[in-house]
């Protein structure tokens, strides 16, 4: 019996369906969301997906908590934009579509160089070193304006005549197609990586580095090689971003950017391969859309992150998988009412809380505009007692209802899990 025959199960068919579906979403997204704003957002999402997936090679697959992943995407971005400028000046003959590869090679090179030091240690020490290297590169960006462009950054022009097959990369949609193609190929390659000896040993190093040494592997090597692969894909993401914005500023290597990779990869879910894809989408929605809606967006984001760390450490992907498991055992339906109750109560509490937050921001930051503001279509007077009382009541009532719903849900959830546990044991024994 060969391994291939042994492995053939319905989920292999499912896998084809999933990948076709992924390609289809990438293809149809700009047709469904066709406004120019949507195209911009979708392009950024594609870039963020590659970046978060590459970060998860470290975090989820290798147990390496890096605080400096933006170093590799950022330096990739700078190298790509300088390459693009060389191409534009005619000093280098390279199709614009391959410029992100220059970013990838830069990411790979710097990950090999800096990662050699970083990956000698694991755990807390590793995290500290990545933080240090992140600060180091950030300070370099201020010291070397020739390369990093100083405060204004380095600008470029992605339209380099002559056009090939009518593709100029002038219109945003053409850039989107380039990003979508890279996104699909990079996702597939990074998924393939998880199925290779190095990919599996990386999981082993995450679980138990000590034991890895006693089965013949050098744990530092495993971490270093994985770090380089993560750097390569981060660099490609940086290169795509450079083409997309025709600009690279010091912000792209900043600790803030590194923090965003960590935060959104975690929110999306670091334990499942597809988690960072969700994370990348959330990253753009939060940093571009949410930040337009409210000045308090970082506060909401921090709140969501804390809740996620405490109650759903598997991120969105973890929640999805847990519910798929319930559905597979026919246990999801009885929980739907509980979910509805949680959602309604949660929405009420959130409305009350955010009304107060927005009123506070109105008073503190928008003083010139006066205390009257519009929130969810309702006019509120931030200096009047009635608005505050109303919001507080909403928060209290919603919060109490949420807590009640949560307790009932918890009981149902635990029952369902216990049933599934029994069912699995029964099947194993059969």
């Amino acid at each position, binding site marked *: 019996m060969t391994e*291939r025959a042994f*492995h053939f199960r319905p989920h292999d068919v499912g896998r084809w369906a999933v990948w076709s579906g992924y390609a289809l979403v990438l293809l149809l997204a700009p047709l469904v969301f066709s406004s120019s704003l949507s195209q911009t957002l979708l392009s950024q999402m594609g870039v963020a997906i590659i970046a978060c997936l590459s970060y998860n090679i470290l975090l989820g697959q290798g147990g390496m908590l890096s605080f400096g992943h933006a170093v590799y995407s950022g330096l990739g971005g700078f190298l790509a934009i300088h390459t693009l400028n060389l191409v534009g000046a005619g000093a280098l003959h390279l199709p614009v579509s391959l410029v992100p590869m220059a970013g990838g090679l830069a990411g790979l090179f710097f990950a090999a160089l800096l990662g050699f030091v970083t990956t000698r240690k694991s755990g807390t020490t590793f995290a500290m070193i990545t933080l240090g290297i992140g600060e180091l590169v950030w300070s370099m960006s201020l010291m070397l304006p020739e390369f990093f462009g100083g405060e204004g950054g380095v600008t470029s022009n992605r339209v380099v005549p002559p056009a090939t097959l009518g593709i100029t990369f002038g219109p945003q949609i053409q850039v989107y197609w380039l990003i979508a193609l890279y996104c699909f190929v990079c996702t597939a390659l990074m998924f393939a990586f998880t199925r290779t000896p190095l990919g599996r040993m990386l999981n082993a190093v995450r679980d138990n580095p000590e034991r*890895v040494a006693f089965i013949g592997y050098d744990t530092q090597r495993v971490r270093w090689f994985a770090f380089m692969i993560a750097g390569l894909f981060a660099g490609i993401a940086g290169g795509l971003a450079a083409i997309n914005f025709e600009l690279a500023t010091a912000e792209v290597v900043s600790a803030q950017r590194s923090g965003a990779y960590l935060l959104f990869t975690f929110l999306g879910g670091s334990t499942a391969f597809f988690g960072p894809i969700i994370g990348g989408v959330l990253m753009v929605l939060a940093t571009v859309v949410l930040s337009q809606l409210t000045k308090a967006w970082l506060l909401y984001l921090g709140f969501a992150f804390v809740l996620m760390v405490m109650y759903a450490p598997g991120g969105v992907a973890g929640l999805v998988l847990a519910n798929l498991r319930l559905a597979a055992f026919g246990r999801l339906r009885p929980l739907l009412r509980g979910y509805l109750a949680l959602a309604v109560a949660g929405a009420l509490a959130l409305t009350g809380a955010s009304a107060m937050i927005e009123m506070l921001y109105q008073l503190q930051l928008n003083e010139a505009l006066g205390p009257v503001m519009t929130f969810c279509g309702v006019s509120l007077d931030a200096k009047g007692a009635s608005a505050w009382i109303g919001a507080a009541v909403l928060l209290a009532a919603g919060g109490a209802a949420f807590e009640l719903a949560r307790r009932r849900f918890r009981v149902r959830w635990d029952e369902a899990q216990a049933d599934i546990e029994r069912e699995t044991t029964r099947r194993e024994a059969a």
Partner: protein
Amino acid sequence: MTDAAARIALELRDVHKRFGKTEIIRGASLQVNAGERVAIIGPNGAGKSTLFNLISGRFAPSSGEILLNGARIDGAAPHRINRLGLARSFQVSNLFTHLSVFENLRCAVLWSLGYRYAFWRFLAGLHDANERARQVMALLQLDRRRDVLAMNLTYAEQRALEIGLTIAGGADVLLLDEPTAGMSKSETRRFVQLIRTVTEGKTLLTVEHDMGVVFGLADRIAVLVYGEVIAFDTPEAVRANPRVQEAYLGSSIAQTSAHADDAGDA
């Protein structure tokens, strides 16, 4: 005795290990022949686990030499020692907790089959690695638990997988650190049989507290007291040795010998 049988697989020459001012190993010397099963016994704190850690490369000795098949390995990194053909198990199961039984075993065979750090080949296509992992899984009677995560196994299953990780790479010299620790009598009996099977034709060095297992399994017994090997001989000779009886509460050895023959028959 043929030449091969008399070949020395593992040798310790006057090995010392100090932690600060405390000297745990004080000049331990030992010669283990290829194909031999040796048990190390000794009272708590005699330095048995430290000795294992020195041999397997977890610690470097303060002085002295350790030779594996004639080559110096003292102070070498664990992965280098493993590549030279020495594998060890741990007293507390040391597994890849979030990987399945099969994945645990496959990880343990990859290096020995030469796949190193390959990221250009799919695991599913490595027929020899998959076959070897499956063989070991069958040997451990864990086939039915193929896809269960190591952390969800029962205690006895984890102990079995611990042995599996140690032998999967095909090392010639095996160090088993209290393989039957915490097991019931019947589990121990089954386990001794398993160890006997998987160490067939290999050199075995084991630390064991269960005298039944020791006398049932070992060709020779090394007695370690306060960091020194005070006796190294056949079970019968060790049992009769007055120095051993004096140092190692001889009564306990005498008492357990009957029970030992029991386990030996298993």
